[in-house]
């Protein structure tokens, strides 16, 4: 045989092996630290795509020139009884998806169920507002040979990803599940909807559900091997920490500040950076009446993951009188050589902070109408906030509403276009206070809102200067379920009404659209399997927020795999 031909054959074999590896083989097997640190390509190992929470994939097989050829590859129904909020994971040929305290492993090529793991909540599970969150899960983690799942009752399940059998199930002392307060004296508890995050040597476990009677938010670092607690970080400052005195003594213990959405991780700073939810109760009368800052709530908090000490807290809505929690995932973006926390949130602004120090850099508006303040000053303090409503008096109109801006539906960042992609809305609200009622040990909100609806928008915003690049506006209220962007210059999302789309990341031009006919409440993912790039979108729940009669869709529950 000709030597040159032999050489070509060897080169061909090598290329085939490389391609095979790219298609998934080199990414098979236990998930190690290098895999966790990489931007997603063949696999999708973090709910937010990577530690920096970009929801950006390096895959290019699907791109602007062929996205119009997308087709449904498979459909799976998890039989969901509530919103499908879970961003799935993909590894080793399997899509992992959580719904209603179950975890499914699906064949990445055809959606067939490979295994199902089910956790039963206790019979006395329940309580104030708990039906609102029961069955919702926003993320999973994968590390080693386990998928990590946080059930609603604050238990961490390590599930062998090959077999679907539990390696361990861990409960955490001090984090009881909420109980039906018609039956239980001690009824408040943590109802968990957030997902864990895998970082080297630790699983980050956010304890987010603090709105079900009044509890303080925490983030735990636990051992991936057995769930043993390595450290526990309090979102609300403890005695001796800066910001402790921004709460009336004793109010910290029911002050909320749940780390509602999985945060980001900086491997150089070794910091876990998370947004936090509202201060509790919503009526601020017991926590300073809006005059005290309530640091830790409606804040961005950085936790040192070597010891669990909080490195810094930035309060985006001091005193949080509007339920403008800012739990949105803080993205990490290098801007002009500085590692920067970039967080679009409910305030209608994108907040920029120095990741190392938490020092405020700037806040750029993105919402159409912002009336609650006139802007942020150089220290990151709101300028001229409107006067609060009087308890029992008329409600006050403010924009955005407590739905945002952007809410918990994930955003994305594409380093190639330099754009942020926002799942945004433009609703306003009338907001009022009433007396706070307490039943058992369950503190109720003492506040209410009347929504003023406006349309869903998907926005592309230059990450560096906050300027709008393009905008797609829907004809009805809501937000997209979440954003995904790729090196193929694409953005994928499903609108509130379930229109699944692939759009040009540079222009917003709609390249592919499929009406799935049900609600979108989660972000899509993409992965490579058997040489083909897939995009998976979970859908389900009730379209719209409240009884928005603009929508005709009925309740649904479905996971769809797309390819070409």
């Amino acid at each position, binding site marked *: 045989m000709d030597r040159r031909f032999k050489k070509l054959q060897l080169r061909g074999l090598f290329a085939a092996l490389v391609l095979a590896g790219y298609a998934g083989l080199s990414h098979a097997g236990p998930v190690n630290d290098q895999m966790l640190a990489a931007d997603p390509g063949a696999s999708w190992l973090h709910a937010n795509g990577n530690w920096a929470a970009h929801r950006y994939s390096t895959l290019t097989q699907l791109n602007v020139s062929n996205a119009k050829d997308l087709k449904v590859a498979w459909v799976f129904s998890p039989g969901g009884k509530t919103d499908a909020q879970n961003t799935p994971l993909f590894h080793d040929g399997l899509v992992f998806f959580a719904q209603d305290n179950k975890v499914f492993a699906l064949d990445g090529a055809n959606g067939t169920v490979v295994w199902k793991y089910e956790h039963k909540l206790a019979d006395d599970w329940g309580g104030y507002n708990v039906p609102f969150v029961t069955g919702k899960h926003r993320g999973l983690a994968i590390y080693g040979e386990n998928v990590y799942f946080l059930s609603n009752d604050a238990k961490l399940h390590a599930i062998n990803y090959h077999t679907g059998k539990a390696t361990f199930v861990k409960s955490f002392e001090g984090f009881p599940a909420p109980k039906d307060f018609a039956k239980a004296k001690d009824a408040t508890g943590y109802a968990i909807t957030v997902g864990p995050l895998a970082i080297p040597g630790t699983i980050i476990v956010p304890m987010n559900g603090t709105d079900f009677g009044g509890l303080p938010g925490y983030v735990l670092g636990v051992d991936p091997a057995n769930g043993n607690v390595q450290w526990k970080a309090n979102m609300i400052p403890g005695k001796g920490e800066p910001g402790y005195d921004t709460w009336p003594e004793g109010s910290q213990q029911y002050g909320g500040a749940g780390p509602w959405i999985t945060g980001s991780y900086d491997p150089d700073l070794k910091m876990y950076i998370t947004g936090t939810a509202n201060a509790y109760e919503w009526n601020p009368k017991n926590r300073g009446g809006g005059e005290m800052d309530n640091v830790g709530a409606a804040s961005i908090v950085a936790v040192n993951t070597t010891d669990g000490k909080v490195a810094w807290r930035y309060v985006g809505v001091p005193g949080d009188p509007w339920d403008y929690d800012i739990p949105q995932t803080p993205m990490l973006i290098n801007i002009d050589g500085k590692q920067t926390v970039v967080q679009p949130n409910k305030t209608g602004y994108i907040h920029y902070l120095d990741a190392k120090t938490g020092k405020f850099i700037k806040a750029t508006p993105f919402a159409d109408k912002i009336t609650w303040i006139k802007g942020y000053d150089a220290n990151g303090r709101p300028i001229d906030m409107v006067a609060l409503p009087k308890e029992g008096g008329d409600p006050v109109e403010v924009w955005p509403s407590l739905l945002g801006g952007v809410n918990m539906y994930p955003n994305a960042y594409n380093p190639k276009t330099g754009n942020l992609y926002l799942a945004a809305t433009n609703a306003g609200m009338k907001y009022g206070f009433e007396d706070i009622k307490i*039943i058992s040990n369950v503190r109720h909100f*003492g506040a209410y*809102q009347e*929504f003023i609806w406006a349309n869903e928008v998907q926005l592309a915003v230059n990450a560096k200067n906050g300027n709008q690049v393009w905008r797609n506006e829907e004809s009805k209220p809501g937000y997209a379920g979440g954003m995904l962007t790729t090196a193929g210059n694409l953005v994928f999302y499903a609108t509130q009404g379930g229109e699944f789309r692939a759009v040009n990341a540079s222009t917003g031009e709609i390249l592919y659209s499929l009406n799935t006919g049900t609600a979108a409440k989660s972000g899509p993912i993409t992965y490579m399997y058997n040489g083909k790039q897939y995009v998976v979108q979970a859908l389900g729940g009730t379209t719209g927020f409240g*009884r928005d009669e603009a929508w005709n869709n009925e*309740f649904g529950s479905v996971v769809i795999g797309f390819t070409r």
Partner: protein
Amino acid sequence: MQVALCIAAAAIASALIAPSLASADEVPPVNPMSGDAKMIREGKSWFVNVCSPCHGGRADGAGERGTAADLRKWNKGFRKFVATVKGGKDTGRAMTMPAWGGVLDEKVIFQIGAYVETLAIEGANWKEGVAQQ
């Protein structure tokens, strides 16, 4: 002997059931707190705390926590309102209407009803069944 047992069982059963039936009968067909400004004020306060998260500040079903009935259009009368608040409503999904009967005093439920009645719009009926009394 068997007959005696049956009679005893029936007596126990009726003793157990009777109070709840009597209680249901005690709910008047029309809310005695209707139009009472003080009761309506207190009812609003309770409504805001325990109902508005799902039913919305306007009681139109546009709650921050999701879809719920538009109570401005409540047309099943006062008794059914009280029964639904007490017993809850199974929607077949995770987001159900909880049973508040073991939590809220009947007086509070009446106060909430008096407030919600003030928000009634076309099609509402708080006196459903009254004519048949």
